[in-house]
Protein backbone atom coordinates (compact mmCIF):
# COMPACT_ATOMS: atom_id res chain seq x y z
CA UNK A 1 0.00 0.00 0.00
CA UNK A 2 1.26 3.41 -0.99
CA UNK A 3 2.36 5.71 1.82
CA UNK A 4 2.12 8.70 -0.46
CA UNK A 5 -1.38 10.02 0.00
CA UNK A 6 -3.09 11.86 -2.81
CA UNK A 7 -6.47 13.54 -2.59
CA UNK A 8 -8.94 13.60 -4.12
CA UNK A 9 -8.78 10.33 -6.07
CA UNK A 10 -11.19 11.69 -8.66
CA UNK A 11 -12.25 15.18 -9.61
CA UNK A 12 -14.50 16.42 -12.38
CA UNK A 13 -14.34 20.01 -13.55
CA UNK A 14 -15.86 22.11 -16.25
CA UNK A 15 -13.67 23.97 -18.68
CA UNK A 16 -12.34 27.11 -17.10
CA UNK A 17 -12.78 25.84 -13.55
CA UNK A 18 -10.00 25.57 -11.02
CA UNK A 19 -8.72 22.12 -10.11
CA UNK A 20 -6.59 21.46 -7.04
CA UNK A 21 -4.90 18.24 -6.02
CA UNK A 22 -3.00 17.51 -2.85
CA UNK A 23 -0.22 15.15 -1.91
CA UNK A 24 1.20 14.10 1.43
CA UNK A 25 4.64 12.60 0.81
CA UNK A 26 5.91 9.65 2.74
CA UNK A 27 7.28 10.64 6.14
CA UNK A 28 10.94 11.59 5.95
CA UNK A 29 10.90 12.17 2.20
CA UNK A 30 12.00 15.70 1.36
CA UNK A 31 11.82 15.28 -2.42
CA UNK A 32 8.46 15.42 -4.20
CA UNK A 33 7.64 14.99 -7.89
CA UNK A 34 4.48 15.63 -9.91
CA UNK A 35 3.85 13.76 -13.15
CA UNK A 36 0.94 13.85 -15.56
CA UNK A 37 -0.11 10.52 -17.13
CA UNK A 38 -2.52 10.87 -20.04
CA UNK A 39 -4.91 8.28 -21.42
CA UNK A 40 -2.24 7.09 -23.87
CA UNK A 41 0.09 6.31 -20.94
CA UNK A 42 2.40 9.15 -21.83
CA UNK A 43 4.09 10.62 -18.78
CA UNK A 44 4.97 14.26 -18.48
CA UNK A 45 7.21 15.53 -15.70
CA UNK A 46 5.70 18.69 -14.26
CA UNK A 47 7.75 19.80 -11.27
CA UNK A 48 9.82 18.58 -8.35
CA UNK A 49 10.64 20.00 -4.95
CA UNK A 50 13.20 19.43 -2.27
CA UNK A 51 11.65 20.53 0.98
CA UNK A 52 9.87 23.69 -0.06
CA UNK A 53 12.18 24.66 -2.92
CA UNK A 54 11.49 24.01 -6.60
CA UNK A 55 14.28 21.94 -8.17
CA UNK A 56 13.04 21.65 -11.73
CA UNK A 57 9.86 22.45 -13.55
CA UNK A 58 8.53 22.57 -17.06
CA UNK A 59 7.24 25.73 -18.55
CA UNK A 60 4.00 25.44 -16.64
CA UNK A 61 1.62 25.52 -19.54
CA UNK A 62 0.90 29.20 -19.97
CA UNK A 63 1.12 29.65 -16.22
CA UNK A 64 -2.16 27.83 -15.68
CA UNK A 65 -0.37 25.28 -13.53
CA UNK A 66 1.11 26.10 -10.17
CA UNK A 67 2.50 23.94 -7.41
CA UNK A 68 3.86 24.31 -3.92
CA UNK A 69 5.13 22.22 -1.03
CA UNK A 70 4.78 24.36 2.11
CA UNK A 71 6.28 23.18 5.35
CA UNK A 72 3.88 21.29 7.61
CA UNK A 73 1.18 21.21 4.93
CA UNK A 74 0.39 18.93 2.01
CA UNK A 75 1.97 19.64 -1.33
CA UNK A 76 -0.47 20.83 -3.97
CA UNK A 77 -0.85 21.11 -7.71
CA UNK A 78 -3.42 23.58 -9.03
CA UNK A 79 -4.74 24.25 -12.48
CA UNK A 80 -6.21 27.72 -12.59
CA UNK A 81 -8.41 27.31 -15.64
CA UNK A 82 -8.91 23.70 -16.65
CA UNK A 83 -8.93 22.67 -20.29
CA UNK A 84 -10.09 19.41 -21.86
CA UNK A 85 -6.49 18.49 -22.61
CA UNK A 86 -5.69 18.57 -18.89
CA UNK A 87 -7.76 15.43 -18.35
CA UNK A 88 -5.25 12.93 -17.01
CA UNK A 89 -4.00 11.07 -13.97
CA UNK A 90 -1.79 13.31 -11.85
CA UNK A 91 0.79 11.32 -9.94
CA UNK A 92 2.73 12.51 -6.94
CA UNK A 93 5.88 10.69 -5.88
CA UNK A 94 8.30 11.21 -3.04
CA UNK A 95 11.78 10.07 -2.18
CA UNK A 96 14.54 10.31 0.35
CA UNK A 97 17.35 12.62 -0.58
CA UNK A 98 20.05 9.95 -0.59
CA UNK A 99 18.60 6.92 -2.39
CA UNK A 100 16.15 8.79 -4.52
CA UNK A 101 13.90 5.77 -5.04
CA UNK A 102 10.51 7.14 -5.95
CA UNK A 103 7.36 6.05 -4.15
CA UNK A 104 4.20 6.92 -6.05
CA UNK A 105 0.77 7.74 -4.77
CA UNK A 106 -2.36 6.34 -6.35
CA UNK A 107 -2.96 9.51 -8.30
CA UNK A 108 -5.71 12.05 -8.75
CA UNK A 109 -7.74 11.46 -11.89
CA UNK A 110 -8.92 14.73 -13.38
CA UNK A 111 -11.72 14.80 -15.93
CA UNK A 112 -12.43 18.12 -17.60
CA UNK A 113 -15.81 18.16 -19.30
Amino acid at each position, binding site marked *: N*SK*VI*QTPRYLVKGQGQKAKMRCIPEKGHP*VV*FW*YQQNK*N*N*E*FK*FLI*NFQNQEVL*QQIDMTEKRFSAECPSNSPCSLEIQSSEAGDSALY*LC*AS*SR*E*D*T*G*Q*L*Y*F*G*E*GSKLTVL
Partner: protein
Amino acid sequence: AQSVTQPDARVTVSEGASLQLRCKYSYSATPYLFWYVQYPRQGLQLLLKYYSGDPVVQGVNSFEAEFSKSNSSFHLQKASVHWSDSAVYFCALSMHYNQGKLIFGQGTKLSIKP
Protein backbone atom coordinates in the same frame (compact mmCIF):
# COMPACT_ATOMS: atom_id res chain seq x y z
CA ALA B 1 17.66 13.03 -26.74
CA GLN B 2 17.05 10.32 -24.22
CA SER B 3 14.18 7.95 -24.82
CA VAL B 4 12.67 4.64 -23.79
CA THR B 5 10.82 2.35 -26.18
CA GLN B 6 8.60 -0.55 -25.28
CA PRO B 7 7.84 -2.10 -28.66
CA ASP B 8 4.93 -4.25 -27.51
CA ALA B 9 1.81 -2.34 -26.53
CA ARG B 10 0.04 -5.56 -25.51
CA VAL B 11 1.26 -8.99 -24.53
CA THR B 12 -0.91 -12.00 -23.74
CA VAL B 13 0.50 -15.14 -22.15
CA SER B 14 -1.02 -18.19 -20.53
CA GLU B 15 -0.91 -18.60 -16.79
CA GLY B 16 2.18 -20.51 -15.82
CA ALA B 17 4.05 -19.58 -18.99
CA SER B 18 7.22 -17.56 -19.09
CA LEU B 19 7.23 -13.88 -19.88
CA GLN B 20 9.50 -11.32 -21.45
CA LEU B 21 8.59 -7.67 -21.79
CA ARG B 22 10.97 -5.72 -23.97
CA CYS B 23 12.52 -2.34 -23.26
CA LYS B 24 15.05 -0.43 -25.35
CA TYR B 25 16.61 2.83 -24.31
CA SER B 26 18.56 5.59 -25.96
CA TYR B 27 21.13 7.38 -23.82
CA SER B 28 24.79 7.95 -24.49
CA ALA B 29 26.02 7.53 -20.90
CA THR B 30 25.28 4.83 -18.34
CA PRO B 31 21.58 4.88 -17.58
CA TYR B 32 19.73 4.11 -14.39
CA LEU B 33 16.86 1.84 -15.36
CA PHE B 34 13.61 0.85 -13.69
CA TRP B 35 10.57 -1.28 -14.23
CA TYR B 36 7.29 -0.18 -12.69
CA VAL B 37 3.90 -1.90 -12.63
CA GLN B 38 0.56 -0.16 -12.59
CA TYR B 39 -2.56 -2.05 -11.56
CA PRO B 40 -5.97 -0.64 -12.52
CA ARG B 41 -6.84 2.58 -10.71
CA GLN B 42 -3.55 2.59 -8.85
CA GLY B 43 -0.24 4.41 -8.94
CA LEU B 44 3.09 2.98 -9.97
CA GLN B 45 4.93 0.37 -7.96
CA LEU B 46 8.62 -0.27 -8.42
CA LEU B 47 9.45 -3.84 -9.49
CA LEU B 48 13.22 -3.50 -9.79
CA LYS B 49 16.03 -1.15 -10.66
CA TYR B 50 19.46 -1.26 -12.22
CA TYR B 51 22.17 1.12 -11.13
CA SER B 52 25.40 -0.75 -11.83
CA GLY B 53 27.15 -4.08 -11.34
CA ASP B 54 25.54 -7.43 -12.08
CA PRO B 55 23.48 -6.92 -15.23
CA VAL B 56 20.80 -9.30 -13.98
CA VAL B 57 18.72 -7.73 -11.25
CA GLN B 58 16.11 -9.41 -9.12
CA GLY B 59 12.89 -7.71 -8.17
CA VAL B 60 9.67 -8.32 -6.34
CA ASN B 61 7.26 -11.14 -7.16
CA SER B 62 10.00 -13.18 -8.92
CA PHE B 63 10.53 -10.64 -11.65
CA GLU B 64 14.02 -10.09 -12.97
CA ALA B 65 15.56 -7.96 -15.68
CA GLU B 66 18.77 -8.04 -17.64
CA PHE B 67 20.68 -4.94 -18.61
CA SER B 68 22.57 -5.05 -21.90
CA LYS B 69 24.72 -2.07 -22.77
CA SER B 70 25.56 -3.46 -26.21
CA ASN B 71 21.88 -3.86 -27.08
CA SER B 72 20.69 -0.81 -25.14
CA SER B 73 18.07 -3.01 -23.58
CA PHE B 74 16.58 -3.80 -20.20
CA HIS B 75 14.09 -6.63 -20.73
CA LEU B 76 11.82 -7.80 -17.92
CA GLN B 77 11.33 -11.51 -17.39
CA LYS B 78 9.41 -13.91 -15.23
CA ALA B 79 9.63 -17.68 -15.33
CA SER B 80 5.98 -18.41 -14.56
CA VAL B 81 3.24 -15.79 -14.61
CA HIS B 82 0.17 -15.70 -12.41
CA TRP B 83 -3.21 -14.19 -13.22
CA SER B 84 -2.48 -11.45 -10.68
CA ASP B 85 0.38 -10.22 -12.87
CA SER B 86 -2.16 -8.69 -15.26
CA ALA B 87 -1.30 -5.00 -15.31
CA VAL B 88 0.51 -2.34 -17.31
CA TYR B 89 4.28 -2.41 -17.08
CA PHE B 90 6.48 0.62 -17.62
CA CYS B 91 10.19 0.78 -18.26
CA ALA B 92 11.84 4.04 -17.20
CA LEU B 93 15.23 5.69 -17.40
CA SER B 94 16.94 8.28 -15.28
CA MET B 95 20.20 10.03 -15.91
CA HIS B 96 20.90 10.40 -12.20
CA TYR B 97 21.45 7.84 -9.46
CA ASN B 98 18.80 9.44 -7.32
CA GLN B 99 16.26 8.88 -10.09
CA GLY B 100 15.52 12.53 -10.63
CA LYS B 101 13.32 13.06 -13.61
CA LEU B 102 12.17 9.76 -15.09
CA ILE B 103 11.69 9.14 -18.81
CA PHE B 104 9.02 6.50 -19.30
CA GLY B 105 8.29 4.07 -22.08
CA GLN B 106 4.80 3.80 -23.50
CA GLY B 107 3.92 0.82 -21.36
CA THR B 108 3.03 -2.78 -22.12
CA LYS B 109 -0.35 -4.10 -21.10
CA LEU B 110 0.01 -7.69 -19.90
CA SER B 111 -2.99 -10.00 -20.03
CA ILE B 112 -2.92 -13.50 -18.58
CA LYS B 113 -5.02 -16.26 -20.16
CA PRO B 114 -6.38 -18.87 -17.74
